[in-house]
């Protein structure tokens, strides 16, 4: 039967109007984005792609190793969503073989076929959330938090700055991808931490007389009663050389834990000393351990290159909120490195983090890479199959921990995009794919925003924007207190 497939395909081409001679080449097609050899979950949005601009027409056939076939033709390869879903579901655990023909100057070229692997691990989460922001710059202008259905191309705002003029919003943080409980911090004159639980929201001032500011980087305790937050008065500086431009650092930083039942803060002097900087806390799924990063403080910005964060952890008592002793897990500073954003997988198997040469903001560090720690052995390794020569950071796990996403500047070294990859039980990762778009070249080449702080969201985030303006500008806040 297989020997008939090329003949059938040629006939299809004729039917499709691909008249004229066809040149075959052994090279792989130069498609954008690079989806060659990536692994995707069944039911992901179609991996539409473009050929270089000089090709005015494209004809694509996608054949499943477990059956099924899909064709697309036009200015770029765009697949119908339902048929794509059906094909990927039929081929979960199998391979899609993609045949590409491009038309230029009256001639068709057929490249070597390439595979797209469909994982047998489903990605059931609804989508991803992210901030869209000018690349690398702390700003309070046009900015927003958005959610994107990863099974289609639908993107919608959760909150945009047009709703709260002059206020900048920090990362949206859900509880282990579940938006039934989520928060974000609004910076600016009318700043507050918005906490939404079960549809009811509160605007809380988390700064107290005993703390240096409002919480910025937060992480929910799996039980839902607490969240840990680092207080980071962020500043931005600039390099004069032509290889790096921006440096983002904290003037100081401390770590606190909030009890959302009564808005009281656990402020422990061991975690708020001015001699050290604490940042990006994350609870383990059993809720008994809190990982975070910690560095010796130096004057900034002049000695910012001396600030290197170690990976540390402490025990946590979910009954009282009490924190234990600080234990160094990985003394990266001794080796001349700096760790940020430790993220334990929700199944407790792995811990992923960013590693750069110094500092706390890997997104502006070209050398920043993702590393993976096996929590059962403590062994750690760079994710060489994921990393690129430029910055990788801001990673998060899917709700079942079989997939993760991260930010990378690999496209042009400047604008950050969201990539998704799977991980198996041995910790091996597949080639990541960039978040699909309906017309990828048009979308990614024209956008002037970076996708910042992405995370998976298990279900669609519901945030009623009615009344937000009034809530923000009324300055009616719940004042947090310090636990005795």
């Amino acid at each position, binding site marked *: 039967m297989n020997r008939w497939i090329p003949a059938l395909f040629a006939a299809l081409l004729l039917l499709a109007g691909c008249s004229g001679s066809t040149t075959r080449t052994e090279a792989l097609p130069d498609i954008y984005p690079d989806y060659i050899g990536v692994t995707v979950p069944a039911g992901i949005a179609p991996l539409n792609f473009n050929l270089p601009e000089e090709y005015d027409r494209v004809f694509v056939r996608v054949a499943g190793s477990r059956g099924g076939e899909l064709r697309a033709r036009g200015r770029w390869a765009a697949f119908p969503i339902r048929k794509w879903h059906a094909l990927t579901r039929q081929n979960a655990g199998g391979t899609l073989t993609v045949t590409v023909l491009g038309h230029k100057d009256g001639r068709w070229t057929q490249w070597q076929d390439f595979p797209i692997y469909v994982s047998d691990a489903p990605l059931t989460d609804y989508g991803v959330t992210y901030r869209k922001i000018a690349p690398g*710059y702390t700003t309070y202008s046009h900015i927003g938090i958005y959610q994107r259905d990863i099974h289609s191309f639908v993107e919608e705002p959760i909150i945009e700055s047009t709703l709260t003029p002059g206020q900048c919003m920090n990362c949206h943080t859900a509880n282990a991808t579940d938006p039934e409980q989520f928060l974000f911090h609004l910076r600016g004159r009318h700043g507050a931490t918005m906490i939404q639980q079960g549809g009811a929201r509160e605007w809380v001032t988390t700064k107290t007389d005993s703390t240096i500011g409002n919480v910025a980087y937060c992480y929910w305790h799996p039980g839902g009663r607490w969240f840990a937050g680092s207080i980071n008065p962020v500043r931005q500086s*600039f390099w004069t050389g032509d*290889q790096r*431009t921006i440096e983002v650092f904290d003037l100081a930083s401390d770590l606190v834990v909030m009890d959302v039942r009564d808005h009281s803060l656990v402020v422990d002097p061991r975690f708020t000393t001015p001699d050290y900087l604490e940042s990006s806390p994350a609870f383990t799924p059993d809720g008994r351990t809190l990982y975070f990063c910690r560095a010796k403080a130096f004057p900034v910005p002049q000695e910012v290159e001396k600030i290197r964060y170690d990976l540390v952890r402490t025990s946590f008592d979910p009954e009282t909120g009490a924190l234990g002793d600080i234990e160094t897990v990985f003394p990266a500073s001794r080796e001349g490195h700096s760790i940020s954003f430790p993220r334990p997988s929700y199944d407790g198997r792995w811990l992923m983090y960013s590693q750069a040469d110094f500092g706390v903001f890997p997104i502006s560090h070209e050398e920043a890479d993702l590393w993976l720690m096996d929590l059962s052995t403590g062994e750690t390794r760079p994710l060489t199959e994921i990393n690129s020569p430029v910055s990788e950071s801001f990673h998060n796990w899917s709700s079942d921990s079989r997939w993760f996403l991260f930010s990378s500047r690999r496209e*042009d070294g400047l604008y950050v995009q969201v990539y998704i990859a799977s991980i198996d039980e041995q910790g091996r990762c597949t080639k990541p794919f960039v978040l699909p778009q309906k017309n990828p070249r048009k979308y990614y080449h024209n956008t002037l925003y970076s996708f910042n702080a992405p995370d998976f969201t298990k279900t669609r985030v519901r945030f009623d924007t009615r009344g937000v303006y009034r809530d923000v500008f009324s300055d009616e806040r719940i004042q947090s207190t310090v636990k005795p």
Partner: protein
Amino acid sequence: MNKKRILILAIAAAVLLAGASQVAFLLRYPYFRKYAVQNGISLREARKAWGHPDQLSEVAMGLTVEAALENWDAVAALAAEDRKSEIGTYYYNLANAHRGQLADRLLDYYQPFERGLFLPVGERSTPFQIACAGDVWFALGDMSMAERDAMLGMLFSPAHTGPRYLRRLAETNLVTGDYEAASKYLRILLNTPAERAWAQERLPDAWSPEYRARIGRKRALLPRLDVVHGMDQTQLILRILLHSNPDNRMALDYLLCYDLLTKDLDAFVADYDPDRTASHLYEEAMLIFLAAKGGMDGENFAHYHISERNFNRFNDFVRIYKRDGGSLQNLTEEFGKTYWYFYYFAKRNEN
């Protein structure tokens, strides 16, 4: 005349009136249209962004439009029409700096201290100020700051994009040699019909000898020291530019004028080398310093190239100042444009 005909005539009259109004507006405010083009917005949006157009706003639009095109003669001419605005002073100074006259002509014009040299970029800045703030950094050779201000200017602009900002972002990256990042912006401009020719000429493999020379001149100004600095460390940035390229005369004059406008005479004396740049302004500042430190002697006068005329004028100024008990009344006419007058009488407007 039936009702239908009356209706048609009324609509035609309304269209004609609207068209005439638009033409009248364009004749009166031609820079609004150019500003709209540079910002990728309609004329209506440009008018809306500004509020109530008037001659002052037309001048401000003209300054930013001509500066983006690097038409410094036009900038200087427009600045002469401005009435005491920070934007006006900023472009007046920049146009003079391009002609090597920053210091000589500094105090011929309203100077709101250092804010006339570098526009502040912060939460209290207007979108218009932010859009203009990078022009001086681009001229001085600091591409990090120029890129930052182009990026922020774009974000705060009416359409959050626009050829003016995309051009600058493309060029800052071409100067630093980051062709991947430059391509991002050139690609967008190539898809904008009015910008296609500009972008095509800047594709790295299509540079003309003239454009290659322009990039070469810009690259010669780049700092070769990689130092991190805060947003408010203007003097440090200028000193780094000078350390990398002592021939960057514009950076030197901006540094010295910054020292003088902030009345930081100790910094001025440390930064000033009379064999590298000269101006009556610098002589005037040195006279204050030498008088205060007890260095009014021939050796210092020779070293700092202080003319006898300036020395005598300074003595006259001091004499009148003391005679009138520190009053400016009898000093304004003759000394109103000297550094002595600025140093003793200029007060910051803290509002």
